[in-house]
């Protein structure tokens, strides 16, 4: 904290002003009606009161009672501080029944302020608003009394916040800006697409650097919230812990380990492609680990979401009851984009969940020019990252988009899934692929998944004949293959049978042939023996004849 700055009571504004309002001198807060000047000044007073300092608020348009009421409502303990005497309220509302006759001066303003500041030993002074004070008194020119007041503020070194309406931008005010104050902050509200966005800009700050952009801010029941771009420095801590998506096969698509804790993930897909179930599965996984989670839905009410997820086996009621899970439902058109993002950031800041689901983030995208939306999303994602929360965004792709993302934030996210539905053979089949995942060995495959009673189920991939086949075509293909194999097996059996038949035939024929051979041979042998015997008898008879003649 800078020595010559005093905290504004708003974290974001302190960052923009590099410490706070300049100490010991006046700061001018300019803004049209309804831009939140009073809330800023009450926040400032509250921050000082919290630290035990005293504060004097000179109110020129609202009654002191109402101011205290506002503080109480914003949780700033107004009545309590008033009772303790730390908070001094000066009623500077002009009395409109007063008649003016002749010349007068405004020295009582300084008298009352100095009296109150010195009596309460106040560190800070708030004047809300100078405009009304001057107008109520019929003063249109810069009065020397007002300049004297600023001189007195400097001399007494009272840190002062003066608010002034910017609607009447004429001479006295620019003189005040140029001469009397050290810091000028301008508040404005713009209307984009019929939604109002508030902006803050620092016009000047003597002797100090300050953020110079136009910063969106939000006003809600908790006071003021700002999104300064300075918080988007790329200095978030490195996170090595991996978290499972809850679907083992998806984890393995991300290099076997899931995503990095605190990463930002985006799931893109057309209507009905399973984005919500996918995001909820990841959310459920984190809840099962006992960590906190926030689900922001722009499409479904809490009840609808609970019922719809129950049907796919994701039961959230228990987590909701225990406060582990917070579901924040709202239509996108309820408020401006900045308000949405700031509301969500506040939720994250309060709950510090491990995972935040925004379903669908594309609902916010119609709420401004794409450049503006991208700028805000950069801030938003950086903030979430700094908080160490895993961010899961779903993106609804229009049917005419041909599955191309028209959201220019894909470069901001760490991991990007794409869900698709492919039509073939009269059916739609669900496919998922990882478009990118920083720091992981990403699978390049397109996987098919189905949604059943127990959530998302990834099918075995069928890759045959050089192409991936999905759905019933995949089943048909598998059937065909099985039949083919069956047929081959049958054929094999047949051939084997033929072979053994052949063998048997051969063997039996061999036996017959052997028997025939054997009988033929013995017949021939018998004939040989017979003939040999007959031949012997002839020779004997011839010898006997010759012997007889002799």
């Amino acid at each position: 904290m800078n020595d010559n700055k005093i905290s504004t009571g708003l974290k974001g504004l302190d960052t923009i002003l590099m410490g706070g309002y300049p100490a010991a001198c006046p700061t001018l807060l300019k803004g049209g009606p309804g831009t939140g000047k009073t809330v800023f000044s009450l926040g400032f007073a509250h921050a000082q009161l919290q630290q035990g300092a005293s504060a004097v608020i000179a109110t020129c348009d609202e009654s002191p009672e109402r101011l205290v009421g506002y503080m109480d409502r914003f949780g700033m303990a107004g009545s309590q501080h008033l009772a303790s005497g730390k908070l001094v309220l000066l009623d500077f509302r002009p009395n409109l029944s007063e008649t003016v006759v002749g010349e007068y001066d405004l020295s009582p303003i300084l008298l009352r302020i100095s009296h109150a500041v010195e009596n309460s030993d106040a560190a800070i002074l708030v004047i809300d608003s100078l405009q009304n004070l001057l107008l109520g008194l019929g003063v249109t020119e810069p009065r020397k009394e007002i300049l004297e007041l600023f001189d007195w503020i400097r001399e007494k070194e009272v840190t002062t916040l003066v608010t002034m309406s910017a609607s009447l931008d004429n001479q006295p005010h620019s003189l005040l800006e140029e001469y009397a104050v050290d810091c000028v902050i301008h508040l404005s509200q713009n209307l984009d697409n019929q939604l109002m966005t508030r902006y803050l800009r620092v016009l000047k700050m003597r002797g100090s650097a300050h953020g110079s952009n136009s910063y969106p801010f939000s006003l809600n029941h908790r006071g003021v919230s700002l999104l300064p771009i300075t918080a988007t420095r790329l200095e978030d801590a490195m996170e090595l812990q991996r978290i499972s998506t809850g679907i083992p096969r998806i984890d393995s698509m991300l290099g076997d380990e899931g995503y990095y804790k605190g990463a930002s993930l985006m799931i893109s897909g057309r209507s009905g492609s399973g984005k919500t179930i996918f995001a909820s599965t990841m959310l459920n996984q984190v809840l099962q680990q006992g960590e906190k989670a926030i689900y922001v839905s722009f499409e479904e009410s809490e009840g609808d979401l609970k019922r719809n997820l129950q049907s796919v086996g994701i039961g959230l009621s228990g987590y909701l009851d225990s406060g582990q899970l917070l579901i924040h439902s709202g239509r996108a058109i309820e408020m401006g984009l900045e308000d949405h993002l700031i509301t969500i950031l506040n939720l994250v800041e309060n709950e510090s969940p491990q995972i935040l689901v925004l379903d669908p983030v594309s609902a916010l995208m119609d709420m401004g020019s794409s450049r503006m939306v991208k700028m805000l999303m950069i801030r938003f994602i950086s903030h979430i990252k700094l908080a160490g929360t895993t961010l899961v965004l779903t993106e609804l792709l229009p049917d005419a988009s041909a599955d191309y993302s028209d959201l220019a934030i894909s470069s901001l996210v760490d991991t990007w899934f794409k869900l698709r539905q492919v039509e073939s053979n009269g059916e739609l089949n669900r496919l998922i692929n990882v478009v990118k995942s920083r720091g992981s060995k990403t699978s390049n495959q397109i996987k098919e998944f189905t949604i059943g009673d127990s959530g998302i189920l990834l099918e075995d991939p069928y890759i045959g004949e050089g192409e991936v086949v999905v759905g019933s075509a995949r089943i048909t293909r598998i059937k065909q293959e099985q039949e083919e194999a069956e047929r081959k097996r049958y054929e094999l059996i047949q051939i084997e049978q033929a072979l053994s038949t052949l063998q048997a035939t051969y063997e039996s024929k061999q036996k017959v042939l052997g028997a025939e051979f054997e009988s033929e041979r013995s017949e021939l042998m018998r004939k040989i023996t017979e003939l040999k015997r007959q031949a012997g008898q002839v020779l004997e008879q011839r010898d006997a004849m010759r012997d007889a003649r002799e």
Partner: protein
Amino acid sequence: MAKQIVRLYVLGYTPIAQRAIENLKLLCQQPEFSTVYDTEVINLLDQPSLAEEEKILATPVLIKKLPEPMRRIIGDLSDRERVLVGLDIFTKDSDIRE
């Protein structure tokens, strides 16, 4: 009937304050005024908390609390007629003129 008190608050005896005191004195010479009101001059430098109490933003200021309604007149009171009108007192002159 007891007279009511009209108070003139000044912040130091500046030239404007002195003019206002002079004009108040002249006012007291008007019977319409002096029969109803007593006057008192208060210097806020002596009693700064009165400025807070009376919620005074500009001086000099002439404050009449009673009878109701309360009337406050800012300035040096240089226009006597307007002061009297401002205090709901109508002189014979103004009645005739109207």
